[in-house]
């Protein structure tokens, strides 16, 4: 079971707003590791992830009095974190930014669907370390817009609605980006298994 989906302990927003230090420490304890992991996955850089971790909590704690409770505390926090990540990317790595989901033209989804059924392989092969590294690396190379959606949905377990709230986009944009991200990763794995099979045949 994905640990990220475990319901976090109830944190009292009232106490947070009043500046209760015990509650603020509990808030930081509950969410800091997840904000850091999200930062790592979006930014692919330890220093950048640490910087946005600190900025996110500084801004969140400062901004608590303006938290209106329209979204959950975690959704609100992820929203600050993804905005911080975006600002940091703009500042430090402007060359990596393509906020808009890539246009249809540069997407290979319109090409051959690469039909090879590798899904019936034994679990031991599907889950071996190399396969997991392959998918992790492919996910880290998704275009930013797809990567954010993919990580919030698949890693953090947010719903489509929550993901849309965090990123301030419509639910249909989330669904489209998620489809594209999943398609891209599926294609990468298909290529990987095809190559692997070719190599095994050649080695025989």
């Amino acid at each position: 079971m994905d640990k990220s989906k475990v319901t976090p302990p109830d944190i009292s927003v009232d106490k947070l707003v009043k500046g209760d230090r015990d509650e603020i420490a509990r808030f930081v304890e509950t969410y800091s590791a997840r904000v850091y992991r999200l930062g790592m996955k979006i930014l692919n850089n330890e220093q950048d992830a640490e910087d946005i971790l600190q900025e996110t909590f500084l801004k969140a704690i400062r901004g608590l009095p303006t938290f209106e409770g329209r979204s959950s505390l975690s959704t609100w926090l992820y929203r600050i974190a993804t905005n911080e990540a975006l600002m940091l990317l703009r500042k430090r790595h402007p060359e990596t930014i393509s906020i808009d989901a890539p246009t249809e033209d540069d997407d290979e989804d319109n090409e051959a669907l690469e039909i090879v059924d590798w899904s019936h392989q034994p679990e031991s092969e599907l889950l071996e370390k190399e396969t997991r590294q392959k998918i992790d690396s492919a996910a880290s190379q998704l275009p930013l817009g797809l990567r954010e959606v993919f990580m919030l949905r698949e890693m953090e377990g947010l719903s489509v609605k929550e993901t849309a709230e965090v990123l301030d986009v419509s639910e249909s944009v989330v669904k489209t980006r998620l489809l594209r991200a999943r398609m891209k990763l599926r294609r990468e794995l298909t290529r990987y298994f095809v190559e692997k099979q070719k190599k095994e045949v050649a080695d025989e």
Partner: protein
Amino acid sequence: MSEHTDCHDYCAMISEFIDGELSSELCTKLEEHLAGCTNCTVVLNTMKKTIDIYHESNEPAELPEGVKKRLYSSLSLADYIRK
């Protein structure tokens, strides 16, 4: 509409289908198509597995000790680290 285009249209529904978020009307249409289309069934099966593999490879969220220390210090919460 060519068969190729049809398959692309159906493939575009697969992600929502997996999440159980496709409307019942489209669900039925897709299921009917899948029953007769091996290619789209392969896309469905491999996409499901792709998501499973990602979930399995997903590492737990952990905060390195040094990162935690610096975070708590920056928030003036250093006294909570050992609690």
